[in-house]
């Protein structure tokens, strides 16, 4: 019995620590601080408790207890819904929205991380029952490493080469390098664009990245991230000052036109390189049977 108490305590602790490790409020400021964080820390604690308690319940042959895990899954699916809804609401008030693919990605991460917490707590609790607290701590640390590895996704620099390109205005037509972006009617706006506009071209590394980079959600994520970090030179009632990305239909290169508040080409390039590749945008045409 004492063994179980220890298992539950260590399991809950490891699960809780893993949630804290995976809860990062970075430049995106999401989850929002402090209340958004409080919500997720509390849910993390519940997840850790569920995972840790499942082991003693099984050993005591209390099999119905395991059905509570199913209930938990339902609960955490709601977390995803909650995050999706609140992000969609917030997105309407953004000058440069995140886009639904980015939102879906974030919501999915919140759900997924809670399962990782259950998993960590469960394994730690199990190994404590088997090998005592030393075993629990060792396995606990191992699961934390696994959790951390889930956090590092691909970045844009892994799928495409980013280089700065000229922003060219030819009459009313705006180009980045040779990629047509949009028609700008007002002379006044053209002058502003000449002053503050920045252009980048993303050249995808292979056929898979061509499709990933062309995803509208992925492109919106790039625009959103740069606008979040460098600010954006636009406001309501200024519909012409809009950051945009367009593809070169010939070879799948992506022309990105930006109007940052803080015009720093080197920084903007680094930001684009570090935009996460969204899970929902990844396609693998190379895996198709047609290609074998």
């Amino acid at each position: 019995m004492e063994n179980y108490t220890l298992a539950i305590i260590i399991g809950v602790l490891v699960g809780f620590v893993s949630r804290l490790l995976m809860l990062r409020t970075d430049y995106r400021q999401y989850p929002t601080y402090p209340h958004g964080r409080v919500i997720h820390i509390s849910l993390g604690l519940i997840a850790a408790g569920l995972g840790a308690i499942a082991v003693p319940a099984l050993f005591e042959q209390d099999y119905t207890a395991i059905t509570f895990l199913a209930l938990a899954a339902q609960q955490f699916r709601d977390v995803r819904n909650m995050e999706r809804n609140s992000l969609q609401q917030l997105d309407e008030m953004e000058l440069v929205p995140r886009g639904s693919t980015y939102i879906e990605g974030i919501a999915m991460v919140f759900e997924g991380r809670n399962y990782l917490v259950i998993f960590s707590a469960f394994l730690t609790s199990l190994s404590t029952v088997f090998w005592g607290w030393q075993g629990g701590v060792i396995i606990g640390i191992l699961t934390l490493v696994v959790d951390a590895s889930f956090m590092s996704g691909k970045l844009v620099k892994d799928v495409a080469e980013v280089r700065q390109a000229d922003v060219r205005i030819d009459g009313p037509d705006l180009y980045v390098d040779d990629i047509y972006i949009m028609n700008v009617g007002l002379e006044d706006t053209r002058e502003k664009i000449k002053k503050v506009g920045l252009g980048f071209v993303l050249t995808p590394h292979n056929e898979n990245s061509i499709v990933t980079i062309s995803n509208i959600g992925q492109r919106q994520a790039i625009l959103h991230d740069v606008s979040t970090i460098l600010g954006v030179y636009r406001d309501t009632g200024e519909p012409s000052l809009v950051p945009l990305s367009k593809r070169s239909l010939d070879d799948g290169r992506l022309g990105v036109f930006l109007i940052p508040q803080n015009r720093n080409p080197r920084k903007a390039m680094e930001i684009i390189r570090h935009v996460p590749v969204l899970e929902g945008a990844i396609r693998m045409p190379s895996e198709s049977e047609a290609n074998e």
Partner: protein
Amino acid sequence: MMGTSLEKYILAVITMDPQKVSGGAPIFYAENEDEMQKTAFTLEKILDGMAHDVKNGTMIIVKHF
């Protein structure tokens, strides 16, 4: 979603050549290039639609949703 434009709607037309336009949207006549730019500027800010140059002496204000 902004930046990807799901739907477009012409809110106003500004032209120097009345022969070339007609139709549903309000049409503003301009004497010269300068007046056309000024009218388009004002309308853009008021209507929150984007001004585009159709290149034949006509500009349109388009709402991109």
